[in-house]
């Protein structure tokens, strides 16, 4: 008997389970009290590396920048043996072809944002076209944004149908649905948006674009993981999770891993079902891994920078 049910009854999303803010934050803080040391730290950090969607989503991205990012994705730290590569690189649709060429025949996936990322404020046909273009250029995964305006206005059918349509346009590509939790404002709404996305056909649900604060947090990710768990129990279908934005330190990434381990368990503990959307996490993980090996922290200059670092330009801080 197959575990994935043939027919899935779509529930009334207005009655999605409620979330108690105090309770969810308390539970989230429990994960951060786990102490991850020694071999479990090394193992965890390697797993974190393998789950990273190395990301560059800037207006100023150029083919040259994307090429460098792809090289970094393949060669995180060649002097450290036995390191995994990251899971994917995540770029704008216009950069997919460049990334595809740069990554060649490696196993690293190409994720492309689409659907008028990051605001999602465009006509449906534009979003469909955006998605088809990304997939046509060679994207293995599509990161779409939901229409938060419509969602907050209570037009859940619109949001559902839009996700379903994008899923169809994705074809073979896996679809990640970005809820932009920072704009949804309550945990109840995050839960409801998660349910809509999963029932509409999402392969992954993702917290944020990285363009809105707050981006991913442990409590918000926990709400989404619990939604995935409930969906799995009612349909038999696994959904992936991708927290994105604001996860730049190894310790925090390990807390996410602890949470994943204790909420969804071992089946999700791989990069097929869990990703970190991050641009600077990889280097911190590398630094920690080297520290575990040598006992000392290296200078940041020993780790290749794969992005434009924050700093000052002539026209101000960026």
């Amino acid at each position, binding site marked *: *008997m*197959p*575990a*994935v*049910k*043939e*027919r899935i*009854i*779509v529930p009334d999303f207005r009655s999605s*389970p*409620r*979330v*108690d803010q*105090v*309770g*969810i934050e*308390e*539970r989230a803080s429990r994960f951060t*009290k*786990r*102490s*991850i*040391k*020694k*071999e*479990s730290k090394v*193992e*965890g950090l390697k*797993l974190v590396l393998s789950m990273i969607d190395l990301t560059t989503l800037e207006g100023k991205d150029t083919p040259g920048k994307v090429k460098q990012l792809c090289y970094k994705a393949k060669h995180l730290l060649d002097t450290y043996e036995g390191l995994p590569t990251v899971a994917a690189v995540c770029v704008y649709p216009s950069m997919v072809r460049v990334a595809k060429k740069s990554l060649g025949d490696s196993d690293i996936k190409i994720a492309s944002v689409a659907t008028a990322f990051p605001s999602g404020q465009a006509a*449906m046909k534009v979003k*469909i076209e955006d998605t088809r273009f990304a997939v046509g250029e060679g994207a293995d995964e599509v990161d779409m944004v939901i229409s938060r305006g419509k969602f907050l206005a209570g037009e859940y*059918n*619109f949001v*559902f*149908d839009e996700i*379903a*349509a994008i*899923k169809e346009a994705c074809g*073979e*590509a*896996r679809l990640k649905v970005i809820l932009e939790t920072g704009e949804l404002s309550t945990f109840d709404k995050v839960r409801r948006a998660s349910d809509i996305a999963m029932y*509409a*056909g999402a*392969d992954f649900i993702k917290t944020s674009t990285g363009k809105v604060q707050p981006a991913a947090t442990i409590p918000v990710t926990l709400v989404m993981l*619990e939604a995935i*768990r409930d969906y*799995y*129990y009612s*349909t*038999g*279908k*696994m959904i992936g999770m991708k927290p994105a934005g604001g996860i730049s330190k190894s310790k925090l990434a390990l807390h996410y891993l*602890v949470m994943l381990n*204790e909420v*969804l*368990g*071992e*089946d999700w*503990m791989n990069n*097929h079902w869990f990703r970190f959307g991050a641009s600077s996490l990889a280097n911190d993980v590398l630094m920690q891994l080297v520290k575990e090996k040598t006992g000392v922290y290296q200078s940041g200059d020993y780790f290749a920078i794969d992005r434009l670092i924050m700093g000052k330009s002539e026209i101000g801080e960026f």
Partner: protein
Amino acid sequence: MKFNFPISKFQNFKIRSLMPAVTKKNKKTSSNSNGVPKLKFNSGWEYAPAPESKSHIKLKDRFDLFINGKFVKPSSGKYFETINPATEEKIAEIAEANAADVDKAVKAARNAYERVWKKMPATERAKYVFRISRMIQERAREFAVIESIDGGKTIRESRDVDIPLAANHFFYYAGWADKLEYAFPGRVPSSLGVAGQIIPWNFPLLMAAWKIAPALATGNTVVLKPAETTPLTALKLAEIIQESGLPEGVVNIITGFGETGADIVNHPDIDKIAFTGSTEVGKIIQKAVAGSNKKITLELGGKAANIIFDDAPLDQAVEGVINGIYFNQGHVCCAGSRLFVQESVYNIVLRKLKDRIETLIVGDPLDKNTDIGAINSKTQLETINKYISIGKKEGAEMYQSSCPIPGKGFFCRPILFTNVAQSNRIAQEEIFGPVLAIQTFRTDEEVIEKANNTPYGLSAGVWTDKGSKIFNLTTKMRAGVVWANTYNKFDPTSPFGGYKESGFGREGGLHGLSGYLKV
């Protein structure tokens, strides 16, 4: 192409036609032998041991009685051992006080009361209480480790709950010392004299703080007896009290078994008895003080109902149930040991509970990752095991997590009993262990009746998204503390105490003052 299709189009769609990307991995991992979805928590990723260091603690091999500001040998010359319940190894020898020692302690307390403490201006008294609070904070880490070694509770709890709360109690009551007339407007409150205080083994330092702090703030002197299995933090507190310069004899801490406790209760020169412990002993104490002038407060057992309604935030409710019953290995008088679940969400709640207890780590109390530590004593483990076999015999279904437990020491995996009836002993009697008895209900009236149908009345919990239901339930619960959408939350400003056989009198908050005052 039109994309605005009505939602109904999707209601019966075949998921696979839309999901071509179902991988081999997906098929393999999402089904188990019988095709029912099941989460697996025995991940290859295990947390390496993360033990809290013991190197910084200072413990004597032998502890004497703390009487009149000094550590003195017991007149019997007898000592008993206190052991680490996680390793069954001896930690230290503890003096056994007899009636002569109790008399000495009470005389010291009386002397200090009449000569110094009674006459001292309240602001001065407050300074000492503040100082004790600060000194506990300064040595919090040492206290936390000793509490975990001696009692078996996890370092996470002793570090984050017991010790900070104990310090907070002293801090809070220090503030009241010079404001007593504002606590009782129009009255002139005055102290009672010598308080005899007997505390249990589940929260050793915290209970000492609950007892000593209000007594000192209100101008009483104290003879305190910690439980025989967990005397160490109280004796470390005696060291702090000695260092703090508190006048000699104001606090006396003596150790021993039940007989020593009885000697305190029966001593004629004691004005007040404060006892926290079992209902059985509480009844004996109440009989013993009957007819005497002794004022008495009792904080006894409980069999609290935790009630989950179908509109509750279920994941948080489940977490609350876990905290309610498995906190401190279930050695909590207000533990939510009876769970009532509305029938419409029973299966979901049970599934979530089972998944959750699968992730609880049972083991070394000093490991920072341990969720459930050691059972306090061999006797207590035997009691728990006795109730487990009673539960099984009564026809309840037992579910226990599969976590490995250490070979040595006293440990018990978390347990759920389903199929429990109101008439079962596991639903009526206090077990004081990690054992949850689950029942279902259908209507509000039914659950109120069932929850109140117990000789105890210490605490209760209500889980619902609806505010009006919270108020309806909380006013009808015959329990001293009712938590809504949370459980086992303690604060020095909040009174704590029971109805019925859970005792009388309140500790904590403004109410906690009146037990130590004539008003």
